[in-house]
């Protein structure tokens, strides 16, 4: 089993007594990019918090396990956790404005971050990485302070810092969602490049299937705390099985310039606690049995899992 970078088995996460994620399982192989897509509130960020294990954020893992390179990290203590964060698991949040101090130079903050992980900061090494990622003005970047930078550039500085710490697994939580299209594309290209050159594994959370289709090898679709479809990106996008995946795809403005089709309502907040399918209230194909049939991710085709295949046109 050690050939998986990250393995999530049957994970159930709660905030207090309230279930946020139930029975989520998947694996990230070395050098693989796995995207998790879904609406706001479906539990995709909670998934990342569970892997990072930041208890202060209120996530508690009640069932299942998270395995990093064969080592169970589900319930690590604070000190052990600190040793793997950054150097083994890198993290790029949605808004990196909050991760840097706005009025101190990047150099100082880079130094601090490296020191706290027991590494030595080397200017030339940092500049080498900037060059490799095609950052403009790479010689002077370290002297700047975050407030002088655009959102896109700040995001890229956070990625560069993550590279310096040398993790093997990167967690990106909507890392491109606040950026405009041009910087979004740059960041996506940089991440793909890093994956190729450094053999990174990336767990990439996004609500934008367009972004996912350009970067991912595997795609998981989450809905109200459950994984409803999972598989190779081409299989999921070319032949979406779950009604929700199809709705999600229809909502994206496409090349044909047709008006996208939306999805009325919102996911149930307690969706993870339901016995039957939790997409029933918004589903046009649902039958009486959907309300009671317990949730289960079935392998519909090879390497392509879905919890429902109602209304699928083959």
């Amino acid at each position: 089993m050690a050939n998986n970078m990250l393995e999530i088995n049957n994970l159930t996460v709660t905030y207090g007594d309230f279930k946020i994620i139930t029975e989520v399982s998947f694996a990230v192989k070395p050098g693989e990019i796995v995207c998790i897509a879904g609406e706001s509130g479906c539990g995709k960020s909670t998934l990342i918090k569970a892997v990072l294990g930041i208890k202060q954020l209120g996530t508690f893992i009640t069932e299942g396990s998270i395995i990093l390179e064969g080592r169970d990290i589900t319930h690590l203590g604070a000190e052990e956790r600190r040793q793997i964060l950054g150097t083994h698991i890198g993290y790029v949040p949605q808004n990196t404005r909050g991760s840097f101090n706005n009025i101190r130079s990047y150099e100082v903050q880079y130094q601090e971050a490296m020191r706290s992980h027991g590494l030595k900061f080397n200017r030339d090494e940092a500049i080498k990485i900037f060059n490799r990622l095609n950052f403009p003005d790479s010689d002077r970047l370290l002297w700047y302070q975050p407030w002088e930078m655009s959102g896109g550039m700040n995001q890229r500085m956070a990625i560069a810092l993550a590279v310096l710490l040398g993790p093997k697994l990167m967690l990106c939580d909507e890392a491109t969602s606040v950026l405009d299209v041009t910087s979004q594309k740059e960041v996506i290209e940089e991440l793909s490049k890093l994956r190729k050159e450094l053999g990174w594994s990336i767990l990439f959370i996004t609500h934008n299937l367009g972004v996912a289709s350009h970067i991912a090898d595997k795609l998981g679709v989450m809905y109200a705390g459950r994984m409803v479809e999972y598989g190779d990106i081409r299989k999921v996008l070319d032949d979406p099985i779950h009604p929700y995946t199809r709705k999600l795809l229809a909502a994206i403005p496409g090349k044909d310039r047709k008006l996208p089709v939306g999805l009325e309502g919102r996911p149930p907040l307690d969706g993870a606690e339901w016995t039957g399918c939790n997409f029933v209230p918004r589903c046009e194909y649902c039958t009486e049995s959907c309300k009671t049939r317990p949730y289960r991710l079935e392998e519909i085709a090879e390497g392509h899992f879905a919890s429902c295949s109602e209304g699928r046109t083959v």
Partner: protein
Amino acid sequence: MATCEAPLLEVRNIAKSYGKGKKAKEVLKDVSLTLNEGEVLGIIGESGCGKSVLLNLISCLEPLSSGRLLFKGEDYTGRKPASVCRWFQVIFQDSEAAFDPKITVRESMRENLRLLSGNVADADRRIEEMVSLMGLDPKLADRYPRQLSGGQVQRMSIARGLVTEPNMLLCDEITSALDVSAQAMILQYLYQLRKQRGLTMIFVSHDLALCSTFCDRIAIMNEGRIIENGTPHQIMDEPQQEYTKLLLDAVLYVR
């Protein structure tokens, strides 16, 4: 005098700079555009290109540095925002912040009506009609803004804008903070409103793919100038400017 032939909105060579003397920074340079009744214009550009400033200038929220603004042929440059908000209603990206958190959505809408149209006898009926037109249950209007989802608040905000029957809706990145399914819902309802009421709109966004689905014309902005202006077909299939091509290239369609 206003003539029937005059376009609904005409923006003539407007410019805007912040700061004075040597430190002055010009954020809008010589922007001109016209908009006819019933037309939807998309304005596309990266962050910081001046697209939001342009909307602020059109709705008189900020004074111009130079240029002229005409509404149905009538010059309204330099007027107070209160005197033009009967014509234009602006919808912002973060609508929850645009609602008073201490009163219900319905009360916010009533206030808007009272300020703009005086005491209207059938205010509640008009509010409910507008809310249902945006595809929401009128009962939701009795909730507080924080009790609604992001997509619902945004649709309420559009309903609030339309309840006073403005001539034009100015939308500033109204779907950027929403996820795709909520975004698609908003577009659908706006599209229906267009068909039913011939709504005129300026739709500011950074998403070219989105604008191409429902705008009549698209203007591309870069560094304070409109560099290209045309139908979605012209912009998407036959872009003339390098920058437009760059933007088109960066659109990530689902493959």
